[in-house]
């Protein structure tokens, strides 16, 4: 049995120490993925914590399917991010319609604390079509292999490679101000 499988098996049986180990190991990757999808540090932090809370609630029903455990976490993270973005798009629409300031507009203090480049990166990724955005977030944010991304998204590896190529090409254009 692999080390990860052993840790996951113990976590399934209710070993809090094993779950804490998985938390420490994967928190940053999940955070990075969510950040690249939502582009907001505070929201990404809260959503990442929610991913682990949900994982803790559901871990007893987790079934090992020869996939890295992190794929399961990314699936939860993906759903969390989608829900968040869906709610955001509704809120933004209402705010825009009422000619009110956007509710997710970061305050000047927050802007000052952030690395502009990182925020720009996230903003550019958010402009990609959803399929390309998912692939780029998982590939660069979570550093999953093409095979792992394919399994996590339920797509074949060839499709994922094509989405990756088109996504990087689109980001290149945005960086050059052509997008």
């Amino acid at each position, binding site marked *: 049995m692999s080390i990860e499988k052993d840790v996951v098996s113990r976590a399934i049986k*209710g070993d809090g120490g094993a779950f804490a180990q998985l938390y420490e190991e994967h928190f940053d990757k999940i*955070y990075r993925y969510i950040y690249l999808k939502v582009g907001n540090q505070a929201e990404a932090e809260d959503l990442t914590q929610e991913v682990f809370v949900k994982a803790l609630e559901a871990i007893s029903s987790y079934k090992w399917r020869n996939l890295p455990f992190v794929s399961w976490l990314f699936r939860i993270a993906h759903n969390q991010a989608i829900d968040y973005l869906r709610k955001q798009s509704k809120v933004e629409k209402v705010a825009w319609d009422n000619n009110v300031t956007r509710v997710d507009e970061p305050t000047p203090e927050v802007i000052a604390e952030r*690395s502009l480049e990182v925020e720009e990166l996230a903003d550019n990724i958010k402009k990609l079509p959803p399929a390309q955005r998912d692939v*780029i977030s998982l*590939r660069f944010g979570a550093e999953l292999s093409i095979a792992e991304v394919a399994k996590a998204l339920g797509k074949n590896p060839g499709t994922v*490679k094509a989405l990756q190529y088109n996504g990087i*090409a689109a980001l290149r254009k945005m960086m050059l101000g052509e997008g």
Partner: protein
Amino acid sequence: MARKIEDILDNCLERMFKGESIEDCLKDYPGQASELEPLLKTSAVFIQKSAAIKPAPEFKARARPQLQGLLYAKREKKKEKIPIWHRKWAVAMTTVLVIVLVSVGTVAASTNALPDEPLYSIKLTTERARMALVFSDVGKTELHIQFAERRAGEMVEMARQGKSDKVLMLTEQVAKHSAEVCVAEEAKKGEEKEPKLLVPAPTATPAPPREAEAYNEKDAKELKIVLSQSRTESLDALRNALDKAPEEVKPVLKRAIENIAKDYDRTISIIESGSSP
């Protein structure tokens, strides 16, 4: 066969994730270098910037204890949580246990009940249940013998208390059980096709309620006649059955005949002494 540009790009990205440079990768794909280079440069920027994306240290410091709290709460909940089927099973078992204890206690208490006591009906019900649960003829015969003895014992006690109506009722019961023993044995021998009472139950005139303290002379005389007649008929029936009974039942039947005879004698003796001036 020429590789697709998507495959080459992915191969180079994997190498860059492991620390190789753009130049190392381009050397291996000179034919695609012009197309590949800008994409790899963009990717290098993304790899570098992505690595810089980290949650704020103060957030992690806050989030970790929160998760530990949830882990602790989950562990405590798990300790307390009894599976639903366990709870249902426990309730069912407790209910059954209470019923059994109450029933066993009541049945046990009713074993010594006398005909004028509230638990006597439970005693008779239990006897009927026992009879219904026995399927062999021998078993049924043994139970009839046992119950005839019981009734005879109760008859003595009722006579002692001066309750002649109960004494009469019990003589009927003894006779009835004795007759059942006899019928069973006759049936086994094939001498009788239809079960019938060989010994008719004593047709004693229902006795009016009487005082328990003592018997007047007239009552005592009538009672003695009924008892003597019942004794003769019941014992005759049992002796008749004894001749035809299987060997395993014979010792039980012999002892029952002796006990029932003694009980009749004792009852008659009590009535005689109770009627003495």
